[in-house]
C-alpha cells in the first residue's frame, strides 16, 4: 500500500468511529481543498450510503464569491445536507475586517459564530479538516480534541491517544473536535486530489486576477476592500494556496493552472502554506491562543 492508501484507510476509520459513537456529529466544511478531501473520504467511509451527518459552513460573508458558488453546487451534487451559519448580530452591528482589524473580526465572525452554531445544533462531535503540519500548535493536537463547555482547548491537559483507539466520552455540553486529516501534509492533499480527481474551487488555479500589491502580499479587491493611499489594482498571474476570507487570504504569484503544475510547484516551494494568512501571525503563538478560545 502506498502512503496515500494508508492515510485514506486511517481517515476512513476515524470518520466511522465518530459516526458510530456520537449521537449528533457535524462536519465543518470550509470549502477549501482540505474540506474537499475530507468530504470525499466521508463519501468513501459510508458508501454505498450517503453522509450520516450534515455539513456546516461558518459564513463570515467575506469569503471569495467563487467559494460560495462552489459550495452550493458541490453540496447539491453529492446530496449532502448543508447548514450555513453567520453571526448576523455582529454583522448587523457593523463587524467587518476593514473596521475591526483581523483579530476581533475573526473572534466574532468565525470563532463566536462557530461556537454558537455548534451549541444551536447540539452537536457533540465536529469534524475539521486541520492538519498537524499546518502550524506548530496543531502539531500537538489530538485526532479527538476535547473541548469543554465553553468550547475551549486545554493543550496541557489533552487525553493520551494510543494506537487507533479513541476515547469518545463526553459529558453534556462538552464536545470533541475531530481531525481525520491529522497525518496528511499539504503535498499529500494535492496528490490525493489528483489521484481521486476531486473537484476544487477554481481560485486554486493560477490565472490573471486584479490584485493590489501590498509589500510582499497580493490582496484581493473583493468586498470593496479599501485601498491605501497610492495603491492601484493591477492584473497579476496568481493563485490561492489556501482559502479563507478574501481580505485575509493573500494570493501567491504562480503559473500553476493545473493540479499537476500545482504539485510541481509544491515540491519546489520554500514558504509555508499559512504564511499569507494574516491571522496566524498577528502575535507569537497566536494560533495556539485562538485555538484555546475555540477556533479550529
Amino acid at each position, binding site marked *: 500500500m502506498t*502512503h496515500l492508501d494508508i492515510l485514506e484507510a486511517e481517515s476512513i476509520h476515524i470518520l466511522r468511529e465518530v459516526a458510530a459513537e456520537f449521537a449528533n456529529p457535524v462536519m465543518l466544511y470550509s470549502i477549501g481543498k482540505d474540506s474537499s478531501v475530507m468530504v470525499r473520504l466521508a463519501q468513501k467511509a459510508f458508501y454505498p450510503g450517503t453522509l450520516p451527518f450534515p455539513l456546516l459552513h461558518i459564513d463570515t460573508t467575506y469569503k471569495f464569491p467563487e467559494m460560495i458558488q462552489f459550495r452550493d453546487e458541490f453540496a447539491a451534487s453529492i446530496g449532502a445536507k448543508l447548514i450555513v451559519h453567520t453571526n448576523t448580530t455582529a454583522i448587523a452591528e457593523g463587524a467587518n475586517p476593514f473596521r475591526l482589524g483581523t483579530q476581533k473580526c475573526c473572534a466574532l465572525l468565525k470563532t463566536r459564530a462557530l461556537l454558537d452554531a455548534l451549541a444551536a445544533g447540539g452537536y457533540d462531535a465536529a469534524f475539521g479538516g486541520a492538519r498537524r503540519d499546518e502550524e506548530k500548535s496543531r502539531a500537538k493536537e489530538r485526532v479527538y480534541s476535547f473541548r469543554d463547555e465553553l468550547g475551549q482547548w486545554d493543550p496541557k491537559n489533552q*487525553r*493520551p491517544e*494510543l494506537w487507533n483507539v479513541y476515547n469518545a466520552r463526553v459529558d453534556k455540553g462538552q464536545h470533541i473536535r475531530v481531525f481525520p486529516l491529522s497525518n496528511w501534509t499539504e*503535498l499529500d492533499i494535492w496528490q490525493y486530489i489528483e489521484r481521486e480527481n476531486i473537484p476544487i474551487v477554481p481560485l486554486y488555479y493560477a490565472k490573471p486576477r486584479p490584485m493590489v500589491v501590498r509589500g510582499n502580499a497580493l490582496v484581493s479587491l473583493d468586498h470593496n476592500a479599501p485601498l491605501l493611499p497610492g495603491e492601484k489594482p493591477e492584473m497579476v498571474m496568481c493563485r490561492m494556496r489556501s482559502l479563507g476570507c478574501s481580505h485575509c487570504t493573500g494570493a501567491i504569484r504562480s503559473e500553476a493552472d493545473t493540479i499537476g503544475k500545482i504539485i510541481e510547484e509544491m515540491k519546489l516551494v520554500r514558504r509555508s502554506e499559512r504564511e499569507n494568512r494574516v491571522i496566524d501571525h498577528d502575535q507569537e503563538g497566536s494560533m495556539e491562543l485562538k485555538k484555546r478560545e475555540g477556533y479550529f
Partner: protein
Amino acid sequence: MPGTETSLLRFSTAGSVDDGKSTLIGRLLYDSKGVYEDQLASVAKASANSSGGVIDLALLTDGLRAEREQGITIDVAYRYFSTPRRKFIIADTPGHEQYTRNMATGASTADLAIILIDARNGILPQSRRHAFIANLLGTRHLVVAVNKMDLVDFDQSVFETIRSEFSAFLKKAGAPEALFIPISARDGDNVVSLSSKSSWYTGPSLLDYLETVPAGAESEYLPARFPVQYVLRPDLDFRGYAGQMASGVLRQGESVIALPSRRRSTISRIVTFDGDLAEVRAPQSVTLCLSDEIDISRGDMIVPERQLPHVTRRFRAHVVWMSSKPLEAGQTMLVKHTSHQVRALVRKIEHRLDIVQLDKQQTGRLDLNEIGEITLDAHRPLFFDEYSKNRWTGGFILIDPLTNETAGAGMIIAAEGREETRGPVTAAERVSRFGHRGAVVCVEDMDAAVFLERELFNLGCNVAVAGRLPSNAATVLYSAGMLAIAVGPVMPNAIDARGLAVAEVLELLEIRGVLTGSRPRLIEGDGI
C-alpha cells in the same frame, strides 16, 4: 518529496532538552526540506529572544508557548517529512519520567524508535526508560543514535563502550537488537549521509536506515481480524459491516465466524467506493457483506474460521498508568479495545515494574507514569490476541467512567480463566482444542490400527479406532474432530495409510493438512 508510490514509516523519538532530540528532528526536517523559510524566520526571531546568534533547530519542534518559554518538550508532537522513497511520521515525545505516558503514546503506533544517547554522558536512566517503553509498546526496530560525537572527537572507544553496555540492557529487557549509529545532530554527521569524521563506522546513515527498514508490513501476515465499526444499511437490499482490517488478509468466498455469536458465514462481497475487491489486507478500510443474514453489530469481530482469537472475560495485561488518581484493585474501569467498549473490574495489581533496574516490585496500586501488571475481569468477553503477537487486537485503553479521562494504556499478556464457550461447538473450536483437524485414516488390519492409535495418542492427538464398525462410525468420529482409524477398504475422502510406517503416516497427515509440523497443537490460534 514523495511520489505517489511511496511507503510510510512511523517512528518515535524521546529525549529531553539536553540530549539533542529536537536538534536531530530539526536536522531531519531541515535537510529533507520539511521546513519552510518563513518558519525558519520565525524561529530565528524566537532564537534572538533567548540564545541569540545561531538558529536553534530545536525551536522548530517545540510548538506550545509553555514549551518554548521553558525550553522543554511537554507533549507528543507529530512531525512530517518525506524523501523520494518514503513519507515519515515522527512522534516526538519528551524523555523525563513524568512524561512516561507521552512516551508510551508516541510509541504505540511507531514501527521504529530512535533512542538518543549523549556520547559525553553515556547511558542515563531515561535512555533505558525509552528503550523499555518502545519495546513494551511493540516497536519492532530500535536505533540507538549516539549523539554529540563531535564533542568527544568521534572517539570510537566511547561509542563501543556505550554500544556494549546498552546492548546488554536491551538483551536483558527482551528487546530486539538495535542498530547503533554515531552522529552529530548539530553538524549533521551520519544523519543524512556518512561522515568522514567516523571512518571506523561501517553501517548506514540514519536517514538511509529509515528509508530502507521494513515498514508496518508484518500485520499482513498475522491471522485476519476485522473489528466491526459500523453497520451500513442504506436501503433494504444492502447490509454491510464497515471496518478496518486490524491484521491479516480476508478473501471473497472465505468462511468466517462472527464473534461473539460464533455464527458462521461466507464473505460474499468486499465493498469499497472504488469498486468491489477480491481480497482485503491490513490496514485497509472496507465494508464486508456476508452471505447469511446473521446478527452482527459494532464491537463484534469477523475472523477466519480456523484462526480464532482468545475469547475470555479475564485477562492479564501490562498497564502504563496515565492518571493522577492511582489505580487500585476493586476499581471499575471502561476498557476500550478495537471497536468494543466494556466495563471491567480491576481484580488484582500483580506487581509494578522498575523499568530502569528491570525488576518486579510488590504493590497494591499504580501511580501516574508507573508501569505494572494487572488482572482484569471484563463484564463481557473480549476477543483478542496477545499484544506481543498483535498490537492492534492486544492493546486497549482504560477510561475512568467518572472523569472520562484516558487513565491507562493496556497491553494484553495472556488470557486467564476459562475461554468463553457459547452455542454449538464449531469445527474451528475443535481444531483449536485438539491441535489437528478431523480425518479418517485407513490401515490394513486391526494390529496396525491399534499400533497407530497408541502412537498418535502419545503425540497428543484425539484419536480412536473405528475398527470394522460400519463406515458411518468413522464419519461420526471424523466430524467430531477426531482422527478415526478405520480398517479395510479405503472410504471416499479417507487417507490411505495402508502399509506405511508411523513416520510416513505423520508425514502424509501433514501433507493433507490434518497436522501441521511433526506434532499436533501447531495450528494457529490457540484460543477457545
